[in-house]
């Protein structure tokens, strides 16, 4: 049976691992500190991330570096319109066995890695997208009637470009909902750009150090779920989720913007994501319990892709972030 000291050590270890990860990532990724934290939170919560940002902001570099630091297998799939599901999941190939007989052998696709980078996921057809999304949800692929389990930990980091929408297949809302977080990459500041120039135009830096491995991450996933959550904090999270839903009478506490511009509010998956992420954040902050701040911090990455806005919001340039910010500001903690 664990003692208080064990828990303290556990929390300390988690915090230290995260600090080391941030430090290593900082060697190759300039800025995006929040992004690194949120990706790590998604990892320790067992979720997948959708990264959105214009080309050249370091999305691929971020994911690849994460794979290296975590000592996990990493694969990258560039999504194109002609990409087939089998190109992701793998396929049966006719090969010679040691005795010289011809046999069908299952050749595993790129999805069989701990960390999968699905670059420009919205460029593939819905059929191919759904193959990946099924793998994300089920943690396994079925090929030729046989189930092939994926690696554990398994995490998909999909990217999409918000400006080149021509010839793309936007992800259906139901599939977007399966991403634990949607993270937006912001353009770097002046100082960050300057540092990027220094790093990328000088001699290559030494290889990244591994700070965590698969079993450690799986253990941390267990710890995250053990973080206690006070009823009052949980109630706050529930009220936040309810506030994203417009109702005809506006009696569920929905705020003004949500009432006007939201077609459908967050799904229950949004609440799960919000609470789990808040627990992970508390753990990484060295705290044994979840606070209101944890909930608020995780509100945007957890819910921004789960709100379906109406045409009026499009016309008036209202974003999900703006609506969520208003909700965070107006909904009382108690």
């Amino acid at each position, binding site marked *: 049976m664990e003692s*208080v000291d064990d828990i303290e050590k556990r929390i300390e270890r988690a915090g230290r691992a995260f600090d080391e990860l941030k430090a290593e990532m900082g060697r190759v990724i300039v800025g995006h500190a929040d992004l690194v934290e949120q990706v790590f939170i998604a990892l320790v919560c067992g979720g997948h991330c959708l990264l959105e940002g214009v080309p050249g902001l370091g999305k691929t570099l971020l994911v690849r570096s994460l794979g290296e630091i975590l000592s996990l297998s990493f694969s990258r799939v560039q999504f194109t319109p002609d990409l087939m599901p089998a190109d992701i999941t793998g396929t049966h190939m006719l090969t010679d066995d040691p005795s010289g007989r011809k046999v069908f052998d299952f050749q595993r696709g790129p999805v069989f890695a701990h960390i999968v980078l699905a670059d420009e996921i919205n460029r593939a057809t819905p059929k191919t997208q759904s193959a990946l999304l099924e793998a994300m949800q089920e943690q396994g692929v079925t090929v030729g009637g046989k189930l092939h389990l994926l690696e554990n930990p398994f995490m998909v980091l999909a990217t999409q470009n918000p400006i080149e929408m021509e010839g793309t297949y936007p992800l259906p809302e139901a599939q977007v909902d399966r991403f634990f977080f949607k993270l937006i990459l912001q353009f770097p500041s002046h100082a960050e750009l300057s540092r990027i120039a220094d790093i990328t135009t000088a001699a290559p830096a030494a290889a990244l150090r591994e700070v965590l491995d698969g079993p450690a991450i799986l253990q941390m996933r267990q710890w995250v779920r053990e973080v*206690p959550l006070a009823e*009052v904090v949980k109630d706050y999270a529930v009220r936040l989720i309810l506030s994203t839903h417009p109702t005809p009478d506006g009696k569920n506490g929905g705020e003004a913007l949500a009432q006007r511009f939201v077609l459908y509010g967050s799904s229950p998956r949004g609440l799960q994501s919000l609470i789990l992420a808040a627990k992970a954040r508390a753990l990484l902050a060295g705290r*044994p*319990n979840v606070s209101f701040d944890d909930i608020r911090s995780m509100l945007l990455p957890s819910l921004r892709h789960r709100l379906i806005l109406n045409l009026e919001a499009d016309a008036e340039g209202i974003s999900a972030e703006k609506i969520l910010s208003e909700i965070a500001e107006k909904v009382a903690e*108690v």
Partner: protein
Amino acid sequence: MSAAKELVQAKLASLLAWERRKRCEQILYTAVGVALLLAIVLLPLDGHLPIRELRWFIPGALLLALAPYFFYRRRWRAQDDRRALVQLDRAMRLEERASTAWELAARGETGATAELVFKQAQDRLRSVEPRTVLPRQRDWQAYAVVPLFALWLGLLWFDGDRSFIEQRGAPKNLAHQLSEFARELQEKAKSESLRESLRAGQELEQLAKKNIAAKSDDEELKKELAAVAQKLAAAGKSGADKNSFSAGESQQSLQDLKAELDAARDLLNFSDGVKGTQELPQQWMDRLASLPQVKKQLDREPQGGQGLGQNDLKAFLDRLNQQATGELDRRTLLDAQQFLEQMMQSGQGQKNQSNMQSVARGEQESAGDGVREKNHSNRPGKEPGKNDGADSLPEFRGGAQTQVKGLLGAGDSSAVFFKGKPTPGKSELGQDELVANYRRQAEQELNSERVPEALKETIRKYFLSLEESKR
């Protein structure tokens, strides 16, 4: 149970007890404030209390009645526990450790994670006194209690409720009633040119003013009023001898007569065809005859006034006017005297006040001559000879009607009738006749209050211009 858990529970329980106490105080302040506010608002109703001293206990009674409602409405709920703990977390930057620890303790959690939460909460709360972290903060209700209490006490101390009752509901004293009556009497006297009544009104007003200024009691005023009433009675009786001709006339007849006399004088002033003692042409006599009250008086003259010159007629009209005015003056004085006597007998009262006003205004309910007057004897439910209430003041009906004997029946009419010949075909009415009739009607209307004063002269001139243009 671990020591950390125990300590945390004890600390948080003490905090919640403190918060409950603060809530009770707030409720009490609110209830006291509302009770005081209600007591102030209901101050004018203190007069209905059977014992005057009970007014000091009204806020207490209201508080007892209201407090249960406030305590029930703002009772402590589970949600308030949470709110208080979150407040503590915020105040001490505990990042919801206190809230979580309280819930874990309530759920009986004993795991290592729960123990760690207790331990961390205990470390922060050990040296903290909840009262210092969440001190008592008075809200506006608490600050309003003292001023409200002071206001209520001040109002009661200085008999604010009594003065309010006196201002709003208490009847006026005799001097004020008299002053009001005197003013209205003067107004009436001025409008009808009643010299004696005007003088009496002025005298009464002076008397009332003197009494109001001296704040003397009603009994003293009554004595003085008795003297004035006697004087008025004497003046009324002496006037009766002079104006005996019109004693049988009703108030309305006298007023109509005065109006017609004015119209007749105007007629004479504008008649330039007749000079001095020369006999008036028949045309003018016809016009005078169209004024019923004047005609009635002319008929009493020898030969029905035929053969009178303009000067004679003027003298006749002046005499009539003097007599009518004198009679009206006399009747007003008598009514005033009667009212004063009643006032002395009955003292004060709302009914008396309204009667007094009707006396001073000379209000009339009856239409005039020949119409049965609504006096005490013929009102529904009251039979002649029965007591109508000795303590009420007499109703003023314009004076003479109540004193006229044997004047029952249709009486005189001031209407003008046109009778055309019943010949077939179109009925014809000459322009002269028509204009004369219209003028007569206009003259009667001019004497009423329905025509604005400023327009009366214009109307008179208009009809004169019609006749002049015809000539």
